């Protein structure tokens, strides 16, 4: 199977082996991965809570989004880079881990949730931007995102036990 071959190749590669066997590299990359949670998921959390209509209600949704966006992206850039390096070093363990599969699935689903939100409610944002409580579609996108991210963190934590 293609995916299996790819994981085997990563696992055996010099870089993968170097990270896995280094007593300092792996902990440092993982430490950065956990710390960047504050910036990535931390900002997602407050953005979702604004969509649900419970925080920063006096500020337009678009303003909260624009102000947070560059920092959120910086956080996610760090998350994906460090996450990929961690995967690289344990590709076979990850391949065989149910928690890792669920984590990936939840990441894809939260991207889909964001895409659906951007293609639907977000397009009519000029009508509800300043609403204290955004419309049902936006609130739903906020809740779904919160639940998925809670799941992603949980799966990430469980997954580490299988390595």
């Amino acid at each position, binding site marked *: 199977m293609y995916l299996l071959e790819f994981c085997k190749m990563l696992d055996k590669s010099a870089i993968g082996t170097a990270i896995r066997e280094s007593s300092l590299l*792996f*902990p440092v990359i*993982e*430490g950065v991965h*956990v*710390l960047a*949670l*504050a*910036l990535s*998921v*931390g*900002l997602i*959390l*407050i953005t979702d*809570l604004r969509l649900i209509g419970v*925080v*920063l209600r*006096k*500020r337009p949704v678009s*303003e909260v989004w624009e*102000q*947070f966006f560059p*920092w959120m992206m910086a956080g996610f850039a760090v998350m994906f880079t460090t996450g990929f390096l961690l995967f690289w070093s344990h590709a076979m363990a990850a391949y065989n881990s149910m928690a890792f599969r669920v984590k990936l699935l939840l990441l894809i689903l939260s991207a889909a949730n964001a895409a659906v939100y951007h293609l639907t409610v977000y397009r009519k944002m000029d009508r509800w931007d300043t609403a204290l409580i955004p419309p049902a579609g936006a609130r739903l996108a906020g809740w779904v995102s919160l639940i998925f991210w*809670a799941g992603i*963190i*949980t799966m990430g*934590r*469980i997954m580490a*036990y299988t390595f």
Partner: protein
Amino acid sequence: MATIFPFFEWCEKTALFRVISTHESLFPALETLHLFGLVLLLGTTVILCLRLLGVIMAKQPVPELAGELANYTASGLALMLSSGALMFVATAVRNYSNTSFWVKMMFLAAALIFHFAYFRKVIRMDDLGMARWHGKLAAWGALILWFGVALSGRSIGFLG
């Protein structure tokens, strides 16, 4: 420190220790809750620090933003301290000889004192009445101390 070692031993004789160590899934569950708390506490702290440094939400007064986020910061702190205390009880004796644990406790004590004695006062100050260096000091101090707690905490399991 020899005088407080009996406390660490006593922790492992409690019913709480037995419960956490006999249920395999409890410790990972506590770690997960600890991470949820981190997202709440550090997420809101990072937002406030960026605001104090003047890089985001410049239109919103600091005390107003602080008031909006206060409940989430407090919930995050409560979640972290309670899940952290339970994990401590479950690994007390191992923690005693773990350098990272003691470094984390130093950072935690400093971060808590800084937060309650200074940071919280600065974020409630009126923008106009606040000297700019207060904002910068509060922001950098909080970032360094809380990330110090997180990093040394992460190394408890790795470096010992």
